[in-house]
């Protein structure tokens, strides 16, 4: 019994998120006409409340993997709420069948690749952006 309990606790501890230290940078395609977005704008897009940028153009958010520590930091800084509330919130939306969640990818490189090839895409990465292929519209401290 103790062996099972120990293995359960070990598997749980490995899944705990590690808080990121660097700022988080929200990026869009360089040809996107918007020069900046507010925290409320980005929040509406990543919480599925709205599917367009403020100028009316369609937006396609790109998210990080469900168990990513960067994802946890991003939503906590964006909304002020713990990631477990965000996960429960998205479960409600997804299984109500009215909204599709953002596409989830593995790591900053995948985000930059998608955003740099799709004028409607919006994503976030850790720290500064080492490329001209995307444009920064918001930085979360």
């Amino acid at each position, binding site marked *: 019994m103790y062996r099972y309990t120990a293995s359960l606790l070990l*598997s749980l501890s490995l899944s705990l998120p590690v808080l990121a230290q660097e700022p988080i940078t929200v990026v869009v395609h360089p040809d996107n006409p918007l020069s900046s977005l507010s925290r409320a704008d980005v929040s*509406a897009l990543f919480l599925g409340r709205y599917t*367009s940028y403020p100028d009316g153009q*369609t937006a396609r958010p790109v998210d990080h993997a469900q168990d990513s520590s960067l994802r946890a930091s991003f939503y906590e800084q964006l909304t002020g709420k*713990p990631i477990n509330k965000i996960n*429960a919130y998205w479960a409600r939306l997804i*299984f109500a*069948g009215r909204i599709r969640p953002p596409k989830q990818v593995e790591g900053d490189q995948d985000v930059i690749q998608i955003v740099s090839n799709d004028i409607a895409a919006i994503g976030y990465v850790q720290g500064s952006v080492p490329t001209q292929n995307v444009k920064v519209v918001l930085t979360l401290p």
Partner: protein
Amino acid sequence: MRFLLPAFVILVSTVSSAHAIELSDSVTLRGFGTLGATSTTADTLGYRSSLSSSNPVHDDSVDLASRSLLGLQADILWSQQLSSTVQLVFKDRPEDTLTQSLQLATLNYTPNAHWQVQFGRFAPRAHLLTEYRNVGFGYLWTEPAMEFYGPIQSIYIDGVALTYKHPWQEGFVTYGLDIGTSETLLADKGNPLIHAKLEPIISASLRYEDMSWQLNSSFTYLHNSSDWEGIGDLRQALLGVSGFWPEANRLADKLVSKDTSIYFMSLGADYTGTEWGTRAEISTIQSDSDLVTEVISGYVSVSRFMGDFTPYVRLAHVQPTNSKNKLQTTPPAPVAQLAYQALAVTNIDFEQSSFAAGVRWDFHPNMALKLQWERSWLKEGGAALWWNGAANDDQRRIDTLMLNLDFTF
């Protein structure tokens, strides 16, 4: 019991490593589930989560079947404006048909950020939880309040759902109109399973959401288009004895389900702050049929966010709003049993309160463990939300303990 912990660890390990499956860029498979254990002090009565449930829990066992379920969902993206969702939910039901298991089957047309039209089978937006009542991971408690959600069966609508959304103040306002048909099941001990056909259902909802608040109001009209099983026989039996007892005609007139109307009105509010959360709903059910229990019900829940742990308390209450039918004359002895049986059918009441305390532990991004203790106080003659409650309600106080593993993948 010796196999339970290993089985639990295997389930946790399996689900924690499971993710939504992207079969292609346009097809995604995902799912949700609940492994729910229930223990109760109810004896002649039986605990159940809604009037549709025919698998009650009594005080002689720990039940794992009545609240456990598995849901599978396929999302298909045909184009940026056109998508489909199909959802099957497998759980213990009085009738386990594909019709009952199919919870969602929609073609969604979303021409822009404001409008969406859905065709097919979808969930109603009558209350805060009716869209995702099966998704335990999506809400705080082990089970929604019986006093509020017990009288409302887990229904679907086959028809059209129209949604219009626009920004307002710091958030968004959503107008919803759902029109269609449905069929719901009503079960109780000793009675035939009732298939209530609802044709049409029309539901209008208005919702506001911002970073912290979700406010919901709705009005729903249901037209009952079917004769409920067993009711017609009872009515005919009464009409057959009207020669001995004239009041039988008056009582028979009350035993009508077909072409009657039911109205739901609901208000709900949810606040999720950084440290505290609260949710409350109030609802009324009105009808022109004596077979439908008219009630007012509500609950309020308060929770505290402590990292991965969320302790909570909840108060809930339901009480009838219609007066009870009474006999104006004493039935002759040969028809007395029939008369009192018919009278009881028109006087099925829900009147009870509960206090629940529990904790939710989000130990994984896709999984939560919940433990909840609930005490229910039942008024005499008001136990009909419980299995066998319409016939036997000798218990006034019942404790129920629930443990859930809720997950998504």
